[in-house]
């Protein structure tokens, strides 16, 4: 029996209303805030953003002419649906970074305002040559001259370090260390993110220089998973880089977003079968993911759920599922014009877990 439009509208309204999360109003009413929480957070965020802007402007003025800031509000992309979490996020941190196939990175700050664009580097423009820090405060990226760049999103300052050509940098969770592939030896190297001093490295090559190996720090910074030529290694991130385990034929997905926030599972790609799996760190049987729809690709974790990039260019969106790929739910729609999102990264605050990170 065909239903009327009004009946379908009623059902669709009920479905839409089901999206809202319940809350307890009585404690809020008892607290009797001076202003509504949302407006108060907006006011605090606005003040903090203004202060951050003043600091950024001051920093730019103090910079020498040979070190200009590369942060500039170049353009306002079309509306990007903003992902949110129920933790309080500080202005100046990126909530989410959309890395496009052209190499530009759009970083959306929790303080509101237009998304900031980082221009493509001259050396390698692929999306996987740069990565968002887990706390959303920095972007690590390859550079044309043989140094890495660590861009501070709050101040706009750039720290260049390394003195060698490094591929595919990934900041540790505490932003103190950078994991990067040495462009000459193709070994994984750990650098001090402040001084650029080499800390330790792997003994075996992890790249052939033709592409980025997938490097992913565990949430606690103790392990690094890196894949190359069908072999994936779990390395000790705080010791001498020794191999902890080998995971054959699998590679971590999307850098640090591969690790589940609890550090017990890794989202990986199984090349022989072409399937995505959730692999347990301790070697327990892994689960094979069913994609929520054709052409979708998992990017990482939001809490206990997996985030997928779905849709064709021009109508891409993010959808979350459970660990098996079931129960799809909308997360964010990307309105980025004719650009194609190659990958999306987000600060770990958005996983809904309170975290401590180095300021």
């Amino acid at each position, binding site marked *: 029996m065909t239903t009327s439009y009004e009946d379908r509208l009623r059902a669709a309204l*009920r479905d839409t209303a089901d999206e809202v999360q319940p809350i307890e109003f009585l404690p809020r009413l008892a607290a009797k805030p001076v202003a509504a929480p949302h407006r108060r957070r907006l006011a605090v965020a606005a003040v903090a953003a203004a202060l951050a802007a003043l600091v950024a402007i001051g920093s730019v003025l103090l910079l020498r002419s040979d070190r200009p800031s590369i942060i500039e509000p170049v353009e306002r992309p079309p509306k990007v649906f903003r992902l949110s979490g129920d933790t309080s996020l500080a202005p100046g941190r990126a909530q989410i970074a959309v890395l496009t196939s052209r190499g530009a990175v759009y970083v959306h700050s929790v303080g509101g305002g237009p998304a900031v664009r980082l221009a493509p580097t001259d050396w390698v423009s692929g999306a996987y040559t740069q990565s968002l820090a887990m706390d959303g405060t920095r972007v690590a990226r390859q550079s044309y001259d043989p140094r890495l760049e660590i861009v501070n999103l709050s101040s706009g300052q750039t720290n260049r370090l390394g003195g060698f050509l490094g591929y595919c940098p990934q900041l540790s969770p505490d932003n103190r260390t950078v994991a990067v592939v040495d462009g000459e030896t193709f070994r994984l190297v750990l650098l001090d993110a402040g001084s650029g001093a080499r800390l330790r490295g792997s003994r075996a090559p992890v790249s052939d220089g033709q592409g980025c190996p997938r490097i992913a720090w565990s949430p606690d910074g103790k392990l690094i998973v890196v894949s190359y030529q069908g072999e994936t290694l779990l390395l000790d991130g705080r010791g001498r880089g020794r191999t902890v385990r080998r995971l054959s034929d699998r590679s971590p997905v999307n850098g640090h977003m591969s690790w589940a926030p609890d550090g017990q599972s890794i989202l990986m790609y199984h090349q022989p079968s072409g399937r995505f799996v959730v692999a347990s760190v301790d070697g327990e049987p892994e689960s094979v993911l069913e994609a929520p729809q054709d052409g979708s690709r998992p990017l990482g974790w939001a809490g206990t759920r997996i985030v997928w990039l779905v849709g064709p260019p021009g109508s891409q969106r993010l959808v979350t599922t459970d660990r098996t790929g079931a129960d799809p739910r909308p997360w964010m729609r990307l309105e980025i014009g004719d650009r194609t999102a190659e990958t999306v990264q987000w600060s770990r605050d958005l996983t809904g877990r309170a975290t401590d990170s180095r300021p």
Partner: protein
Amino acid sequence: MTALEDEAFRGFVAARGHALLRTAYLLTGDQQLSEDLVQAALEKAIRHWGSIRESAAAEAYVRRTMYREQISLWRRHRVTELPAATVPEPRRADVPGDQVEDRIVLRDALLQLGRRQRAVVVLRYFEDMTEQQVADTLGISVGTVKSTAHKAIAHLRALCGDLVTAGGEPR
């Protein structure tokens, strides 16, 4: 005794808070804004609790306040991007991918309606109120309710076409 100490008020908020939040969500399309809308309406209800203590009157008062307050929120926050607070994950179980997209489309289409059209749609087709009840809630005539509903439906059809039911019936 303050309103917050009154068991009747506490019972009203506990029993009806989520229903009010669902309505507010359809009006605002945003978790945080919907929470603010309901809270603002409840705060006003607290101040007038003595005269609206009977639960039916209380709910009608809160709903009228929400619809009026929605105007203020809509004007203040008429920007495309807001720092929201809660991951918009619906609580429903399995929903196929295209139905997920339909929900996004309807939520956005609602936000493109004028505030009166949106209110009428929500009151008539979500709250299932009669035209007279809608008119009483919004303080307009029944004739205005009819014409506004007609225009709102036409506008929704133009924005998001036909809709599928949760059961996935064909369009």
